[in-house]
């Protein structure tokens, strides 16, 4: 059933009645013949289709994020500002375009618009850019030609030109415009979109789409003929923190999770580790509930939440119930959950005292890749002894696994290398890896054992001598 969708595309108001599940990529290329946005893979893995998605904040400004348009259903851009490469073009090349040209950041050119969109997004969101963070912002873009060296030079060049910009006053957007990083119409973009009437929630349908980063990879074609409802259209709440817990709305994105100050102070270091989750544009869209319900054995958020002992709140109409995380999965891709139930929130209890999390993920390629094996250990200690431990592992069985026996074994133990080795022996009895594209079963078992060692070395460097690990 077609939906009426209103949004701004670059500097134009778009008002269409269209299949809500058509991707923004297909809309841009097919309906609008804006072909600067490229299709390289249609599964979020190349970044050639990157566009910016700007949403109005409660404060009335626009918050831009880079997203993969190949995984973005058009219904999700209602009331928003979509920017494609064409929307950055001025008569003259802008600073990023010019630097990509002069520093050899483009060869065949197919990946180039995507890189420019990601870089632009970085500068929009970071008034004090650094090369290292700028590179991180390009973690979702693949280039097969340049070896990235020219792209890094281009980035460096833009940073140094930005740092020496003559005008350093006024709003950030106005400085970006003055420095030729954005075209002039960005100064009024929030006025454009604030005029669009708020969306009336559609009737609930049995198929939920949240970030779409799972659904649109395999099922984009089927979704065009399925009745769907968009979780983000129902309501968008923020993470709440109380003295005893964090309450994450189901559609919290991975990005929102890792940039939450409270979570960062409770789980220091996790945000850095979660840079290994997908890529910047994927993290901007991927939701926690989507990760959980997708039930992939190597889902990273599921792995972490399992170790943290999170509680899941399920909602069906007005009825709600809660479930401990490890009770959710019934078997491969099957959940103890009715199809109509949505995950309304995930609750992480805060533990006082010495509580620490270690999360490890190894994949074929460290960034922009799904894990071969991942594992989290959440451990509470008193002195040198373990008060309680929760160990999870992914990629070693049909579901994200809670290693119950090993966790129980660790409870109450004094931390030592020999306890660690005994735990590893137990781990082996709890898992059943299979051989697939991400590795052989022998490798996955070995890798998990190594990751358990890594947890201990990282968490207790003074108690676990490296000699006793090797």
């Amino acid at each position: 059933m077609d939906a009426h969708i209103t949004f701004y595309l670059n500097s134009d108001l778009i008002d269409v009645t269209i299949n809500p599940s058509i991707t923004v990529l297909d809309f841009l290329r097919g309906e609008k013949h804006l072909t600067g946005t490229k299709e390289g893979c249609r599964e979020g893995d190349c970044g050639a289709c990157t566009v910016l998605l700007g949403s109005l904040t409660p404060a009335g400004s626009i918050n831009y994020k880079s997203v993969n348009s190949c995984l973005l259903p058009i219904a999700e851009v209602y009331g928003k500002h979509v920017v494609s490469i064409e929307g950055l073009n001025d008569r003259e090349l802008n600073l990023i375009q010019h630097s990509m040209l002069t520093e050899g950041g483009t060869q065949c050119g197919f990946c180039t618009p995507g890189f420019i969109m990601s870089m632009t997004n970085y500068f929009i969101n970071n008034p004090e850019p650094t090369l290292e963070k700028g590179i991180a912002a390009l973690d979702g873009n693949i280039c097969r030609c340049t070896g990235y060296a020219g792209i890094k030079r281009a980035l460096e060049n833009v940073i140094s030109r930005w740092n020496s910009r003559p005008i350093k006053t006024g709003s950030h957007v106005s400085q970006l415009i003055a420095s030729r990083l954005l075209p002039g119409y960005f100064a009024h973009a929030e006025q454009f979109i604030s005029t669009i009437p708020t969306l009336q929630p559609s009737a609930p349908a049995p198929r939920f789409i949240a970030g779409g980063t799972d659904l649109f990879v395999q099922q984009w074609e089927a979704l065009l003929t399925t009745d769907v409802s968009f979780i983000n259209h129902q309501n968008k709440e923020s993470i709440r923190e109380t003295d005893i817990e964090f309450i994450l709305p189901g559609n919290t994105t991975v990005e929102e999770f890792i940039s939450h100050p409270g979570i960062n102070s409770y789980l220091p270091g996790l945000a850095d580790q979660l840079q290994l989750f997908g890529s910047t544009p994927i993290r901007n869209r991927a939701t926690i509930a989507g990760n959980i319900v997708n039930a992939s054995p190597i889902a990273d958020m599921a792995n972490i939440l399992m170790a943290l002992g999170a509680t899941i709140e399920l909602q069906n109409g007005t009825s709600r119930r809660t479930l401990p995380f490890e009770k959710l999965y019934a078997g491969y891709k099957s959940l103890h959950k009715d199809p109509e139930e949505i995950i309304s929130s995930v609750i992480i209890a805060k533990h006082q005292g010495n509580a620490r999390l270690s999360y490890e993920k190894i994949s074929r390629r460290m960034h922009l890749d799904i894990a071969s094996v991942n594992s989290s250990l959440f451990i509470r200690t008193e002195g040198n002894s373990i008060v309680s431990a929760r160990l999870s592992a992914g990629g070693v069985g049909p579901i994200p696994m809670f290693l119950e026996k090993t966790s129980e074994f660790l409870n109450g133990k004094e931390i030592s290398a020999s306890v660690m080795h005994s735990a590893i022996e137990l781990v082996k009895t709890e898992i059943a890896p299979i051989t697939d594209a991400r590795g052989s079963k022998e490798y996955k078992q070995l890798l998990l054992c190594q990751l358990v060692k890594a947890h201990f070395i990282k968490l207790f460097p003074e108690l676990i001598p490296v000699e006793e690990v090797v």
Partner: protein
Amino acid sequence: MKGYDSIQHVRGESVFIDDIKAPQGTLHAYVVYSKIAHGVLERIDTSEALASPGVHSVLTSSDVTGENQIGSVIADEELLAAHHVHFIGQPVALVLADSKINALRAAKKVRMDITPLQPIFDPREAYEKGSLIMPEKIFTLGDTESAFKECDIIIEGKAESGGQEHLYLETQSALAIPSEGNGIKIFSSTQSPTAVQKITARVLGLPMNMVEVDVTRLGGGFGGKEDQATAWAALAGLGAFVTKRPVKLVLPRQEDMRITGKRHPYSSDYKIGLKKDGTILAYEAVFYQNAGASADLSPAILERTLFHCTNSYYIPHVKAKAVSCKTNLPPNTAFRGFGGPQGMFVIEAAIRKAAKKLNMDPVDIQHKNLLVEGNEFPYGQITEYFYLKRSFEHALEKFSFRESQKRIAEFNASSKLVKKGIAVMPICFGISFTTTFLNQASALIHIYTDGSISVSTAAIEMGQGVNSKVRNVVAHTIGCNHNRIKVDTTNTSRVANTSPTAASKGADLNGFAALHAAEALFDRLQKVAAAELGVTEEKSISIKNEIVYSGEQQTQLTWEQLIWKAYTSRVSLSSQAYHATPDIHFNKETSKGRPFAYHVTGTAISEVTVDCLRGIYEVDSVKIVHDIGKSLDPMIDRGQVEGALAQGIGWMTSEEVIYNQEGRLITDALSTYKVPDIYAAPKEIIVEFLEDVPNPYGPLKAKAVGEPPLMYGIGTFHAILNAMSAYKDDDFEIVSPITHERVLMYLHDSK
């Protein structure tokens, strides 16, 4: 430098095939392929697909109007399978529908009955069963048998190198439009417009002059669109020819990965003999090339493996044998380096094993045996203008190799779980098509009456900057400004009988052809200017930046005036010229000759860090001294080196092509097949071009650049092994790619 192409790239305005606004009535094509690796195709049932919404027709082999044959070297490949299928992914039918999605939906409804036959996937098994593409090839120099008797040590071993998916970001694509009088015009993403023209003509049963092929640019090729762009263009052409409507065929990524061939995996045996001091006396190797189901370009690729089997080293006694094994995998094809990397991989492995046995540093064996001026290659050519040793010694010195080794040893002594490694990789790569007749090109230049210029050559722009280089050559020769010149699309009606843009030869061959064409125009302009200025000595006329000089004297004659004068004096402002690489020859019977115009050489030093606890690594730096002759465009050449290097590292580290037991590709998406991302590429790349090494065989004394730097990636492979050996003193198997899995298993698996 600031190419027209690049300006459009950064604005997102460059037009690739799928960006061409399809004419009204265009049909969209979807390829239906075999899901069985080997079998008899009993029946194809298209009835359900034909009834699917929006479907116009479904074509099978019986709809081919000409010959159902697309093999270019050996006629062993059908466009659409008729009676047998030979690999999973082999095209069987073509669905044509009014939209992409309707074509896709209908394609799922095509049914086929296939009676399976026994498939072969392993090249050695194919060899044993006599399943070969062509008879084996042998290169020999000296007499290995007696030389081995002189050796102090002899080492034998095995080395395996994996395949590699091209992963050009633009997938294979073509748009075919029927033209007047039963002809066809095809916009194709091909490195080889003439191959597309010739094969399409064959498939349709037309003379070549009825098929026009036009190529604006490619979103990456890397060899994957040399021979393997043809099928898609021919299929689109067939669709357009049969339906009389435009047909667009763009392979979805997953289909492209499943159907098209890749770099050839090789399984090889070697035997190397040395003196105690590290001098290599004799080398023998047997290369088993996994060619896949049909010949494609495998024979020429096989030969290049032999050409490069001794890499950068002078070895007086060599015997190398190579066999092209026919298996039930997609036909493997050209990929940057064209078999050369696979040959070099084996000798580098042999040297490391020898070094370990002799308790020597591999770098000393490498250094001791480097080719120098006047040495003979196993194929009979003698080194000339040869600066390999200079680059090697310069790299070691300039990048403080010995100090780095020491620093790394100290680091490793104090770090238990994280180890660093370093390795040196010299390269020597022959430039020319080894199929000698391909070393020709032609160019066509028009100067229009307003002074603007159009240049057409056979070269295909695919990001390697050949258009900029051709433009530089023309501007330099005629003396006009760069922005006057438009390098036009590559079009078979303007430039005929083109060789593929491949073998790193695009800029060389077409640069020379453009140079000759520009020289002819310049000569005419000199005459016109001399007459106009009343100068008797026409050779004293020169043009720089569009200012006409008589001797040293600047004249008032403007560019526009000069061109108009030439036109009104009835002097031709068009010029067509031709170039054939001189002095090259190769006798296929004796495997001796002078196949290459020249060699490209250089040296890279790779440094890596391996986390031995987790089995992962990072490439810290690759520092290169490279011989580029006199660069036609240093920024482009640097980009080529950096890009090729990253691809070489990908081939050696994370890019693993895996087929399952049925012969189905399981790494068939970017989510499972991992090319380097911005983090996997080296953190630091330094490229220094060797100075003062003009190349008499290149246009304006330049050298080719596309392929050779890829092989520096082999050094990164050995740097990783070097780091691993600081953790575990072991004789690691030589299997590439050295994935995270292999690293961890080598280091920790007790088996």
